[in-house]
């Protein structure tokens, strides 16, 4: 199994590591049993994601996808963040080994979970097609 240079770059120098104290939305996905947990923090102002941070327990791919996913949505309007796909994360990282694709799913779900939290806090409905599907059972995302 070989990681691309991009993956190694985002693993070695992960962007956006940390927490946001007054986060507008927080999402946690995965479980320690399967070895990956991602926690995404979003700061949203006027419909724009002004800051995104993460904490991740997991393998190299889990850290790199967290880093890339937060990079991809930072500064973007919510509408664009909602559309973040795991495929986009994989492409931005110049690919992932097949056994690591579930890590990119985790990153997408983490962002969606944080957005869900944002909508919930505001008492608003999250558009149905973008709602997170993560049920904490990693076997569903395929290895």
């Amino acid at each position: 199994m070989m990681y691309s240079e991009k993956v190694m770059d985002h693993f070695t120098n992960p962007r956006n590591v940390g927490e946001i104290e007054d986060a507008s939305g927080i999402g946690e996905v995965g479980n320690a049993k399967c070895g990956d947990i991602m926690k995404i923090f979003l700061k949203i102002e006027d419909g724009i994601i002004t800051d995104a941070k993460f904490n991740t327990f997991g393998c190299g791919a889990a850290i790199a996808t967290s880093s890339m996913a937060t990079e991809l949505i930072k500064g973007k309007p919510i509408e664009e963040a909602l559309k973040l796909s795991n495929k986009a994360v994989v492409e931005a990282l110049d690919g992932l080994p097949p056994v690591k694709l579930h890590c990119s799913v985790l990153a997408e779900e983490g962002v969606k979970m944080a957005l869900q939290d944002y909508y919930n806090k505001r008492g608003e409905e999250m558009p149905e097609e973008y709602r997170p599907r993560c049920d904490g059972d990693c076997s569903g995302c395929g290895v």
Partner: protein
Amino acid sequence: MNVYADNAATTRVSEAALEAMLPCFVENYGNPSSPHHIGQKAAQILLAARQTMAEHLGAEASEILFTSGGSEADNQAIITAAVIGARKGKKHIISTKIEHHAVLHALNKLEKEGYEITLLDVYEDGIVRLSDLEAAIRPDTALVTIMYANNEIGTIQPIKEIGALCREKGVIFHTDAVQAAGHLPINVKEQNIDMLSLSAHKFHGPKGAGVFFCRKGIPITSIIEGGAQERGKRAGTENLPAIVGMAAAFKAACEQMPDAAARVQAMRDKLIDGILQLPEVILNGDREKRLPGNVNVSVKGIEGESLLLMLDQAGICASSGSACTSGSLDPSHVLLAIGLTHEVAHGSLRLSLSEYNNDAEIDYILSTLPPIVERLRSMSPVWKKMKEGK
């Protein structure tokens, strides 16, 4: 600095082994089955290698079967015992939960064919209890197969006592000695071993050669059919260079064992003591009854693969039992068998040393590891939860 600390995976070939092998490629390249002088020269070299292996195992040359490695030897031993058992209506096999997959998967296959498999528990220390084995042996038990030393946590089983118990009960005893050979003393007669597997590349021999020792009187079942090599019990032209390299490496390893083991063990103990200085790190497997070169710890709050990648970037080659390094969602069956939670098993780190390592390398590992652990923990939600929970 580059540090190779993954000697349980494979080892560097020793100078002695390499020197012994080289003439087999260009001078003594004959086929030992050929009657001409070049073939017969090869046959002589093959016999000498067989005698060397036998001598250092306390066996007879006729009891040594050369294989492609440990996995093949394990498979052949298990199939041999299964066939003998089936003839007598005995279809029960006892093993442990921490065996190598070469044993466990061979047993899974037999289970599907109607054999009954009992896997003994090991305790937190990773050691089998004789009383559990005694209770598990039945009149229809065909085989007890228990590894000499574990490949992940390095724990050493009481092989001699297990062998004595099996002999008393009239059950064939096989031991997978792949991790032990060349590192721990072996004498098949004194240790009551009926069948044993070993692999050259774990003791500074080349890859692609191993031994299946089978005590005389036990009829061997061949698993590779073809020519009459290895007394018709293992077809295929012998891998002479690798076999010769194995014999040279094994001889050197056995002769140097007391010194080398003491030196490697001193490095191991320094490494264990140093790593255990880190908070929330535990040693996996018994501290005393473990291979001289094995260190296996769980670093709580972080995941093994990311730890390995960062160590690798610092030049340190190690291993982990995390799921991410196994290609499945489950961490190592060995770590789960000694009672670790999935979460803690995912954070395992194995550093396995050999006589090629030195003190400066141990110091380097000990100075490199803490900041990496610190860094990964600082971004781990699991670690944060652990700290908040206290």
